[in-house]
């Protein structure tokens, strides 16, 4: 039985090819994920990988990793990265350059913005079914809450709550820069 299952198991999958992208924004960039649905052996090692290519000044939606740590390794360009812990304190605020690695613990909030030359990184996650919760944008945490919850939580008006929910309302995972032209990938 082992020969039929593990021995012949597929062990590699390319995530650099742009045609394999799972999320694509022509003004923002792309994200290609590799999880245990695509590569079943990941179920056994309980890890997954993600390739992120951000164009100039684009951002990844602020988010946290629900059930995994994330190890970011910059493969090209440079980006500004900010990470906040459970006390709301900034535990990292700096630039990640090619060859540098950053560990983002589970549930810590993270925000990434590409510099003028773009930002490419690989993110290895410590669960084969790692999930992300975006804070803002389509299907995000704040978008999923009633306006009145936001109004009372942040002491803001209905109009402001609506702007918080909807300004990035049609964008998912990757945010294109505002009033910026697209840079080369």
């Amino acid at each position, binding site marked *: 039985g082992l020969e039929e299952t593990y021995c012949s198991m597929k062990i590699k999958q390319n995530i650099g090819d742009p045609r394999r992208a799972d999320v694509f924004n022509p003004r923002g960039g792309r994200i290609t994920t590799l999880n245990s649905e695509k590569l079943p052996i990941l179920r056994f090692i309980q890890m997954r990988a993600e390739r992120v290519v951000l164009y100039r000044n684009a951002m990844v939606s602020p988010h946290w990793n*629900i059930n995994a740590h994330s190890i970011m390794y910059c493969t090209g360009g440079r980006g500004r990265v900010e990470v*906040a812990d459970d006390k709301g304190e*900034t535990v990292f605020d700096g630039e990640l350059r090619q060859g540098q690695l950053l560990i983002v613990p589970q*549930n810590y909030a993270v925000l990434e913005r590409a510099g003028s030359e773009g930002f490419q990184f690989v993110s290895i996650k410590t*669960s084969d079914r790692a999930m992300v919760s975006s804070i803002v944008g389509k*299907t995000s945490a704040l978008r*999923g*809450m*009633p306006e009145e919850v936001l109004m009372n939580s942040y002491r803001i008006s209905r109009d402001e709550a609506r702007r918080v929910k909807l300004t990035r309302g049609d964008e998912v995972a990757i945010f294109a820069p505002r009033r910026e032209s697209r840079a080369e990938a």
Partner: protein
Amino acid sequence: FGSSQESPFQSSRRSVSTRDECQIERLNALEPTRTVRSEAGITDYFDEDNEQFRCAGVSAIRRVIEPRGLLLPSMSNAPRLVYIVQGRGMVGLVMPGCPETFQSFQRSEQYEREEGERHRRSKDEHQKVYQFQEGDVLAVPNGFAYWCYNDGENPVVAITVLDTSNDANQLDRSHRQFLLAGRQEEGRQRYRREESIKENILRGFGTELLAAAFGIDMELARKLQCRDDTRGEIVRAENGLQVLRPSRREEEERKSIN
């Protein structure tokens, strides 16, 4: 999120051996050791450093939410079960990636013709809101944003047990609450005198970058960071909380429509 499945290569990433932590000679009935007062309620924390909690790999919290009290949105590193000891209210659980299925559009369009601008303004859409009452158990996965509101006339009393040794938690075995709004004093422990402030996670980002990410102005971004908010994690919704939720009357009305 069970990551164990039937993996032959199961990771030993999380060492949850409790052998050393369960050398307990005597069990004691426990009471909260730390109380934090908010604008519209109280949060009682049990001492998670107690050997009995460490042995079980859990943490516990008791909350009292006054009428019109809103427990601000937050998430934590461990899954939890909440038992409603008393009271009734509503709870919102934001599941990442899921659509906003509670929508006021249809209803608004129906009423707009009759009542004009007033209903047009009330358009909103959000994820499902659940109503709870005394005796209910609420299950909240780790990492899911969660808020709670007391729409009854009596305080809501809820006991929460968090399974910090659950496989879904890859941090250490301390309970960590990540506020999405507001800020909170951590309170005074019986044996520790220090007090500290817990800020919401948006405070950890630079205001300029936050404004760019949300696509909003700096002033509104500052408001989201709640820098001068002293209300704590349970705030009072002065005008109540009007959120979308189906009523029995609406169900009956809908039956008569072809």
